[in-house]
């Protein structure tokens, strides 16, 4: 299995699409950081001091307010500190490194699409070029091959996403140091690290699902089409016409997982709440079903 993994890893690394997408993502991150720095107005010490003073005042007012208890999660102090007591709210628009975790959450959809494209392409290319015949005459145990390829795709996309997120974070840190603020809240490093890892996990999941669907359809475009139609059309229809199924739909669970917070979603008949742990379970279920489907088709279908 180690040799097979080494072979698949070499094939993965050699794919131009992987190199181009990684280069594009890194280039895009650099450009994004430059634009963010360009548009940011660096706060002066005076502005910072005024913002801090206003934040403390707003925090005090917030703590004295009566919120009731229904539907409120967490402590009032945390809520007031994160919202009313955040000095960033009282400064002119600028790039604050403290806001990096939500910025990273925002790129999750892009890295997921990247993962989906890489996963579908890396699997389908073997059928489209006919190399699957060559591969199976070297490794006839098809499930073993499928497992190795999926392992390489999943770990490869995970690593690529971590690289992209790390590069973007570094670029934004430099931009914030030059033309923004670098003041960090407690637990910032933990938030950035865990958010980055969750984004990478979702990108890897997208790659595995893309790869598994491509193993069924044996074509990159077909696989991407199926996944996009499912995500953009079918889930929307189900949400509208089968609202009770909504807690089991992939899209909402991914949102809850990436944000890693209990999230309330509104539907026609009311609302439902998804916890991040439950979301992870549902996402894992979708991934396993897709992989099982892909593996079945790889095992039983003739190769021409």
């Amino acid at each position: 299995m180690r040799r097979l993994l080494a072979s698949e890893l070499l094939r993965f690394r050699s794919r131009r699409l992987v190199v181009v997408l990684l280069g594009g993502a890194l280039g895009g991150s650099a450009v994004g950081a430059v634009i963010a720095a360009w548009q940011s107005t660096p706060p002066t010490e005076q502005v910072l001091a005024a913002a801090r003073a206003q934040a403390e005042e707003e925090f005090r007012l917030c703590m004295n307010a009566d919120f009731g208890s229904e539907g409120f999660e967490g402590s009032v102090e945390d809520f007031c500190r994160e919202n009313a007591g955040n000095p960033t709210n009282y400064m002119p628009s600028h790039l604050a490194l403290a806001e990096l975790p939500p910025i990273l959450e925002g790129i999750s959809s892009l890295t997921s699409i990247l993962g989906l494209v890489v996963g579908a392409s890396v699997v389908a290319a073997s059928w489209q070029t006919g190399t699957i015949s060559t591969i199976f005459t070297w490794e006839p145990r098809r499930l073993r091959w499928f497992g190795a390829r999926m392992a390489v795709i999943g770990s490869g996309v995970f690593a690529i996403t971590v690289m992209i997120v790390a590069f973007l974070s570094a670029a934004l840190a430099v931009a914030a140091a030059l033309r923004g603020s670098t003041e960090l809240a407690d637990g910032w490093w933990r938030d950035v690290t865990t958010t980055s890892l969750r984004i990478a996990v979702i990108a890897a999941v997208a790659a595995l699902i893309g790869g598994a669907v491509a193993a069924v359809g044996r074509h990159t475009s077909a696989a991407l089409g199926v996944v996009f139609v499912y995500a953009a059309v079918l889930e929307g229809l189900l949400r509208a016409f089968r609202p009770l199924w909504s807690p089991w739909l992939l899209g909402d669970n991914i949102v809850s997982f990436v944000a890693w917070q209990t999230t309330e979603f509104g539907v026609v008949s009311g609302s439902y709440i998804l916890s991040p742990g439950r979301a992870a379970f549902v996402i894992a279920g979708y991934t396993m079903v897709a992989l099982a489907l892909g593996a079945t088709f790889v095992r039983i279908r003739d190769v021409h």
Partner: protein
Amino acid sequence: MAPVIEIEGLRKTYRRFRKPPTVALDGLDLEVPEGGVFGFLGPNGAGKTTTIRCILGLVAASAGRATLLGTDVPGGLSGVVPRVGSIVEAPALFPRFTGRRNLEILARIDGIAREAVDAALDRVGLEARGGDIVRTYSLGMKQRLGIAAALLKDPSLLILDEPANGLDPAGIVEVRDLLRSLGAEGRTVFVSSHILSEVQQIADRVAIVARGRLVAAGSVHEVLASGRASGVVVRVADLEAGRLALADAGITARIDGDVLRAAVPPAEADRAARALAQRDLYPSLLQPDEGNLEQAFLELTGDDHEVGA
């Protein structure tokens, strides 16, 4: 000596949507002995490639049994695959990778050293172009790279499907020499082809399939004998005069290059010799016309050569 490929009653039926099923193999029996070059012949659509796909586990047979190097396949394929090199139809390699990278990826599956990649490229004359991407290769170079991939494992059995496809005359000669030398090394080279003259020049034994069934098998000489071989070949100084002399003796003859092909049974060759001698035409060559594999092939497969791939 145990056969390296043994096929019994192999059957493959393709189901088609709203159409009757297609029978690609209809109880094929075949034995390929160890060593030398074995030609696997048949018209397009006869089932040659399907047979190869079945024994390599790429398609599942509907019925029948096959063994490769004494092991039942596809069940035991993983045990024998390291000793089997193959090309199925066209060599399938990643077009955007270099030739060397394509081979390196395959070599890693079996833990084959990098030196073996260089040696394989060298053997097929691609050492200078190994660093170029495959998309820039000519058809012949791709074919040679496919053969290099098949040779990487240092296989005892090579299964090559139409290895001369797309090659120019020089390439055909190169591949022919390569296959001959591989067969002479003690390997078994199983070559499927419809270029009959090529197979005739390199094969020790052949099998002919038509409509998914074996119609003839044996040494090239035996198969030729099972086709039409009912004349004699005569060479005389004046071919036209010879043809007229034979015609006067009631023997139909036609000029074919520098010889006459006379429609007289070999056992009655003396009739032709006498007719020519009476006109002072003395043959420098008089031998049974065994024809060639192409004639035997057409005779044995009837109208099947019209069937598409």
